[in-house]
């Protein structure tokens, strides 16, 4: 195994009496496509939110590549090299597709921020990424005017604009038609081949099993099994979590 990726230790978050994440200790593999699966309400999204600083965990630790990032603000997590998408696809509705992309340009000091937002370098990179997900012809449309599938692609491209080493996707295939799911899978594989680590929450088992190298299964806020897709698929605890009780 190469260097360490994202790791948590005893991560816990409760909402009132609901233990959404319950002492989760997980280690994801660097340079691999990791999947995080589990029944509805098992705490996957809450886990994502705690890790990326969107919500503050009650207790536990989060580290990334060996650095403690527990409780770090979302923009610090982004600066550390982790990009994420949201379960309910989030784009900036009243900004153009191109401007949506430019939000992700990494700021480097005061002068950099005062520079024109529409400079050739940033735009070229944005267009290249939009082309990669196949929506470069929409760059002048407002994000609210493009279709839902296109918004999902835009969200992914926007995350890529931050040049993240690790990409966390929350249900990338949710509400997306089969043809697009295929395209997404190809894209994830390509990006992974470039050296980017993925952590993907997904209910589409076909996609999970074909894509991922390492699978972590959540139930009631904590991992109950992990391993390669074949092993996990045949784990009785996993079957019980999905079918039982």
């Amino acid at each position, binding site marked *: 195994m190469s260097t360490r990726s994202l790791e948590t230790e005893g991560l816990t978050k409760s909402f009132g009496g609901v233990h959404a994440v319950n002492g989760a200790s997980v280690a994801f593999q660097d340079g691999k496509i990791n999947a995080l699966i589990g029944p509805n309400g098992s705490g996957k999204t809450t886990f994502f939110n705690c890790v*990326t600083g*969107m919500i503050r965990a009650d207790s536990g630790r989060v580290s990334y590549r060996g650095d403690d990032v527990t409780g770090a*603000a*979302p*923009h610090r*997590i*982004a*600066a550390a090299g982790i*990009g*994420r998408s*949201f379960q*309910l*696809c*989030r*784009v*900036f*509705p*009243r*900004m153009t597709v191109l*401007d949506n992309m*430019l*939000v*992700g*340009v*990494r*700021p480097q000091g005061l002068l*950099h*921020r*005062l*520079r*024109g*937002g*529409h400079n050739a370098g*940033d735009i070229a990179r944005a*267009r290249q990424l939009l082309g990669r997900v196949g929506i*470069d*012809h929409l*760059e*002048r*449309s407002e994000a609210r*005017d*493009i*279709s*839902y*599938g*296109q918004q999902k692609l835009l969200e992914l491209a*926007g*995350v890529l*604009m*931050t040049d993240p080493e690790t990409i966390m996707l929350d249900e990338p295939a*949710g*509400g*997306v*038609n089969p*043809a*697009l799911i295929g395209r997404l899978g190809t894209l994830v594989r390509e990006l992974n081949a470039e050296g980017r680590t993925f952590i993907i929450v997904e209910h589409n088992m076909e996609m999970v099993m074909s894509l991922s190298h390492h699978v972590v299964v959540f139930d009631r806020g904590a991992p109950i099994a992990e391993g390669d897709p074949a092993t996990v698929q045949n784990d009785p605890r996993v079957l019980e979590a999905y079918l039982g009780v």
Partner: protein
Amino acid sequence: MRSASKAPDGTTGTSGTTFDRVLLGGKVLLLLAGLALVLAFPGLAPDAFILSVGVTIASYAALAVGWNFVGGFTGYISLGHAAYSGLGGYATALLIIDGGLNPWLALGVGALGVAVVAVPIGVASLRVRGASFVIVSIAMVLILLLVSQSWADVTGGSSGLRVPRPFSDDVLRPEQHERFFYLHVALVAVALLVWWAIDRSRFGIGLKAIREDEDKAQSLGVPTFKYKLVVFVISAFFTALAGGMYALWFGYLDPIFQFSILIGSYMVLMSLLGGIRSLFGPVVGAVIVGYSLEYFKNQYGDSQFHLVALGLMLGLVVLFMPDGVLPAIGQLVNRFRPTATSIREESAADLLARTTKTEPRQAEEVSR
């Protein structure tokens, strides 16, 4: 099937189609005509009263543009921005009276002081969003009202404060108005220039992202709190300049009027009416609202009728032009675009994508 504005080499030229060029030309012409009209106004005004109405409107415009640094870029609606115009007015006056400063120096130093004061206020109030932020901003102005009223030694209390005039008494009243008209216009111009520069910068793109979806922006690496604070302080600075300029012109400060929620509401109304996302939105709003206010006051005297009329106006705008007057006009113009871009171009695959995902999308939008 790609839009006509897209050149064959794949780059979308900013110049675009002939229509775009005509549109740009039209905008430039309109801008120049507007500017000429503004500059000629003092010469065209028939009497000192009309001239003073012009100064009032210019003052409203300066306030609204100052407000719109926060409102327009971040979408945080501050109803208490009179705090900064009021502080700007008092700071300017007190620096002249007690500090013996030159009036113009007092104006600048006063506004800088207000900007410094705005830092802790921003740190405290920008932690909350939406309605909570609105309430905090109102609380701020109410606190200042109480303080300025009870701290009579310094502020003159309820009886008000006379502000020394910057121009000698030899300068007659209409001439005073004319000078202050141009001074206000210059202030508006500088504020607009700064707004425009921010709008096209990377900083501006980050701010607009905050307005659209703050958490999402932060997850993409935008240091949202810092950005909000910086633009908040800039906003306080320009609002204070507007307040100070008004104090120098009007020559008298009354706490009730300076630290009123009504003044803050005017700033919000003007900006919303003109369009908070447009550079000239607050100016257009200030002209419409300012003119109407003066008209109603003139027609119906000191009654509260002008407030009713104003409320009605706001209602109509929110209902029929939710984005404001300027964006509404922009949409109207866009209808005449030859290659109707309102018809979205999509491939069969996209169409399929849309028809198959309609259900989950709707479900998700409800829960959003």
